[in-house]
């Protein structure tokens, strides 16, 4: 038995190594690019031979990048908070309450989640221009909320459905109004789910490129992914590789931290909403 177990463990370590390489090779590459200095940038080596922080100094002294970073953080946090509040309310109602039109709402959310965002770019562009929302924070926050809501509603309603019915009945019997039952019994129990959903929603906002690209025109509201594609180098033909790599690393850091700290919750959140069907 003993050697067999050892062999299996070794086999699994082998497999795990493949997974780790798969996940990290492109990531390490962009980190290594960001650490290369001008002289070695074009040597084609996977790892930097003489690491330097040149690129980071460059982007952190670039006001456009700093502005974009602030935009990214601010817009995503606000969109996440609002989407979570509205999503929690809607998910609770859908999972637990009986009211007319519920099926329609579920269908709407599903439709929105399948929506090709490109189809909305023009109309949103026109509407936002007319309303003066183009190239502003709300101009991005509102569509982000709309596209985060289906995700939030599905994930959260899966969490809500796991809370035993009897607890709400008990709350009603104990004299709670439906709102009090929601506020004092269900919400505290759903907090882990809400938190998980918030991470997922934040990641999806942070990842957006198309809206950021088409609903902004200046650095007033442009987020980092869009800003990166506008970085210009010494010549118009060559993109400044080092600074782009450094910016990429900077916006990757918060996400990697999330993943490292909340791996278990993210897995639970991504899977809970999806498979119950």
């Amino acid at each position, binding site marked *: 038995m003993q050697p067999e177990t050892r062999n299996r*463990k070794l086999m699994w*370590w082998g497999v*795990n190594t493949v*997974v780790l390489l*798969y*996940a*990290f090779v*492109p*990531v390490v*590459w*962009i980190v290594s*690019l960001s650490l290369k200095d001008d002289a070695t940038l*074009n040597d*084609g080596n996977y790892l930097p031979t003489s690491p330097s922080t040149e690129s980071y100094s460059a982007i952190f002294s670039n006001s456009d990048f700093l502005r974009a970073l602030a935009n990214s953080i601010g817009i995503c946090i606000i969109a996440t908070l609002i989407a979570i509040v*509205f999503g929690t*309310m809607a998910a609770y*109602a*859908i*999972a637990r*309450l*009986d*009211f007319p039109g*519920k099926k329609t709402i*579920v269908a709407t*959310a*599903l439709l*929105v989640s399948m*929506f*090709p965002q*490109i*189809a*909305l*770019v023009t109309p949103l*562009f026109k*509407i936002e221009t007319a309303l003066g929302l183009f190239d502003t924070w709300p101009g991005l926050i*509102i569509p982000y*909320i709309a596209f985060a*809501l289906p995700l939030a509603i599905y994930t959260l*309603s899966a969490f809500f459905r796991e809370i035993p019915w009897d607890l709400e009945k008990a709350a009603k019997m104990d004299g709670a109004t439906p*709102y009090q039952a929601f506020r004092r019994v269900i919400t505290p129990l759903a907090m882990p789910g809400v938190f998980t959903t918030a991470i997922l929603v934040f990641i999806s906002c942070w990842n957006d490129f*198309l809206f950021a*690209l*088409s609903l902004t025109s200046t650095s007033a509201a442009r987020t*980092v*992914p869009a800003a990166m*594609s506008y970085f210009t180098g010494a010549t118009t033909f060559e993109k400044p590789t080092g600074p782009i*790599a450094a910016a*990429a690393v900077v*916006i*990757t850091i918060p996400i990697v931290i999330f*993943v490292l700290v909340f*791996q278990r919750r*993210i*897995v639970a959140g*991504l*899977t809970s909403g*999806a*498979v*119950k*069907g």
Partner: protein
Amino acid sequence: MTATPTSAAAQAIEDVADDGTVQIAQQRHSDAKKAERKLGLMLVAPAVVIMLAVAAYPILYAFWLSLNKADLRRPDDNEFIFLDNYITVLSSPIWWTAFGVTMLITIVGATFELILGMGLAIVMHRTLVGRGLVRTSALVPYAIVTVVAAFSWRFAWTQGLGWLAPETSAPLTEFWPSIWIIILAEVWKTVPFMALLLMAGLALVPEDLLKAASMDGASAWKRFWLVTVPLIKPAILVALLFRTLDAFRVFDNIFILTSGSNQTSSVSMVAYSNLIRGLNLGIGSAMSVLIFLTTGLIAFAFIKLFGAAAPGADAGGKR
């Protein structure tokens, strides 16, 4: 409390009868039900309003624009031209090339994603060692911003810069190498998501069932095909549906990797070029509507052909 409770109760029945409210209407809803309905509608209202405002209204508006000339370069020349934009689009080789490219990326990508995703799901589900480590690392591609990953691949394949770039050619300037790199970027990014959905399915397969199958003489391969796959079919279909719809919208990777040069544009890229770069809202909107309709067709086909249950489809059920 009266001394004769039963008679007091009987009295109560009569009291009610007297004041004429005996007929407790069959159709009435009790206070509790009414309160529940009201609360339900109030709670969903903000979410519904935002979703409608950002998705439903604009798509109708896009449909309207698609029936007009709506060219921002010639704003005075705007007129209702009915289906002319659609005819222009559907008779344009650019559109059909983009459509072909998109379908190719979608189908090849989704196939690889399913195979690799299943492999990764099994590893994450079964590994005897370092499970937390594997799951955490597998989340990294999912969590990384698509644009970041796309830049990483682009630099890697850029001649004279990247570690993957060949000495003598520039793959991102040729059609087929570009397509494969785009597919690679898409697959790399989305396999973990696929794997997580499939892993959730795997977790629902009872361990006892696999043990029983193994006692019945099924090899690991047979157990996988005859027990696991049929049981996780719903998870597979949901994952495939999600990925297919998502792959059809491919934009970020192409934008960064090739900017659509050498005919590598996807339908989203072409629509974007017409809308934002060409400022031809009519044509762009017609493309948007066509993409929307294709997406709907794909979803419809999945649900009809495979009976894929959309996630949350059972959310309507109480209890």
